[in-house]
């Protein structure tokens, strides 16, 4: 694909003053659609998804959008059921305060669904087939349920919510580099990402208010909510990472927090081990598409 030429043509489209001034968002998105249609053959060469049904490690912008939509659809359904908005599912018995917070989160997830559906269809692609969800993790009875009382017990529901939100935050981080070539899509993704991080923080606060040992950020001191070796456990694998890297030329060089940097804010001073525990908290880690998809599949059938 002649990428530079494509961009040049998009730039030309961008300056065409033919669009009405009203409804800027619609106009802007319509413009994306316009660009998508005009340049579709060229664009799709670069964006088409592999036909294989196995989970891919995302490679294209479109793959990233589809993964984001899958996440958002699942989250929206999860919270909608908890609020009694889905036929056949009675609301989880929350307190009034908890219900309000879940409503706030659900509304955001619904907005994210609408956004990513529009971005996908505007790019000329079609939406994935609708899937069915089972948040007990039993795949509609095909395997033992991991969370049998997710729909009736607020503590279980919030555990799964934490799992999904923390996973979502990590999954978006794993996708940003595939969206880097498009400022608009990148910014949509990063702004969705930090919204999800706020959700994750609040769900954790809700659990703490109900007596769980958990911080608002991912910490080694959180009481474990997953079993080692299980699919949900992958959500927290690698979060204890205490190394970050910087690039020099093309090589990655580790930043040695414990020895060379002046981080030490404790009184008395923190031990190197304690400093490293803080380092793990201070950075959320990315999750690749394969792992994110594995978690999604646990709750779909």
């Amino acid at each position, binding site marked *: 694909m002649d*990428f*530079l*030429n494509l*961009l*040049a043509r998009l*730039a*030309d489209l*961008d*300056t065409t003053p033919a669009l009405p001034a009203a409804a*800027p*968002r619609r*106009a802007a998105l319509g*413009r*994306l659609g316009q660009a998508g249609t005009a340049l579709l053959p060229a664009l799709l060469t670069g964006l088409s998804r592999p036909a294989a049904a196995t989970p891919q490690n995302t490679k294209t912008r479109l793959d990233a959008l589809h993964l984001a939509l899958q996440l958002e659809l699942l989250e929206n359904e999860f919270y909608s059921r908890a609020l009694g908005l889905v036929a056949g599912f009675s609301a989880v018995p929350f307190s009034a*305060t908890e219900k309000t917070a879940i409503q*706030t*989160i659900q509304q*955001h997830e619904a*907005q*994210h669904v609408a*956004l990513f559906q529009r971005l996908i269809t505007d790019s000329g692609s079609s939406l994935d087939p609708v899937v069915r969800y089972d948040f007990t993790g039993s795949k509609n009875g095909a395997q033992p349920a991991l969370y049998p009382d997710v729909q009736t017990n607020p503590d279980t529901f919030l555990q799964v919510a934490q799992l999904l939100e923390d996973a979502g935050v990590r999954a978006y981080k794993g996708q*940003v*580099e595939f969206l880097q070539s498009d*400022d*608009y899509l990148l*910014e*949509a993704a*990063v*702004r*969705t*990402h*930090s*919204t999800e*991080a*706020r*959700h*994750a*923080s*609040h769900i954790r*606060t809700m659990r703490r208010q109900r007596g769980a040992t958990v911080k*608002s*950020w991912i910490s080694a001191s959180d009481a474990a909510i997953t079993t080692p070796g299980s699919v949900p456990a992958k959500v927290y694998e690698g979060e204890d990472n205490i190394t*970050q890297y*910087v690039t*020099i030329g093309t090589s990655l060089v580790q*930043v040695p*927090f414990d020895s*060379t*940097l002046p*981080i030490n*804010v*404790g009184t008395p001073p*923190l031990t190197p081990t304690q400093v490293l525990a*803080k*380092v793990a*908290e*201070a*950075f*959320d880690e*990315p999750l690749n598409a394969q792992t994110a998809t594995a978690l999604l599949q646990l709750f779909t059938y």
Partner: protein
Amino acid sequence: MSNIKQNAGDEAEFAKPLYTPIKRRSFFMYAGATAGATALLLSGCDDDKDEVVPAGTISLGSGDVGVLNYAYALEQLEAAFYAQVKDTPATDFKTNELAYFTQVAAHEAIHRDFFKAAINRDAPGKIIPSLQASDLNFSSVDFTKRDSVLAAAKTFEDLGVAAYNGAGKYLKTPAYLVIAGQIVSVEARHAAYVRDLISNGSFADDSIIDSMGLDKAMEPVDVIAAAQPFIKVKLDATSVGK
């Protein structure tokens, strides 16, 4: 291109800055390679890079290192703020709040030191000077009062999130983009935590999340303008990412 500015917020702002100024700019940067005439047409409008920094002003620099310096400046501000919160805790902090802010202080200090290390290793000689205590101005914060501390913390955390959200597009090195993502979500967790302390349930209210469910994004110059009252030395972000 005098219209290159944005202060993201509502829905219209989201569509507008993304589609017109930024998009156009980045596309023309690419387009320059193949569509020379177009680039030439616009080159006269783009005077950002030639701007002279007045004496006494610290330029954050351009390109990726400009973005890193920008983040470094903000993390220094946050780290200094929370260090002060920790050293002179509000007399009316509730149970566990000091312990939590001590942890947040550690996170911010780590972010600050990370950027210092990253810039020194990746772009030797291009790091901005460290902001000393005498360079900062927290006189508007009453550190003895919980309400004042929480309000300031909310300001800093929301600003930090919006700053990272708006700066991602200026990073050209994928590794930096990922690192920025690794940090911004922790900042967003802090922001939600502090907001919930002020008013439980305000973790992601309409003042910060727009009707598309998107968190705020702000341009470097707007973020620095918002942060400038807390920093005595003048920072210039006009060439960040450019």
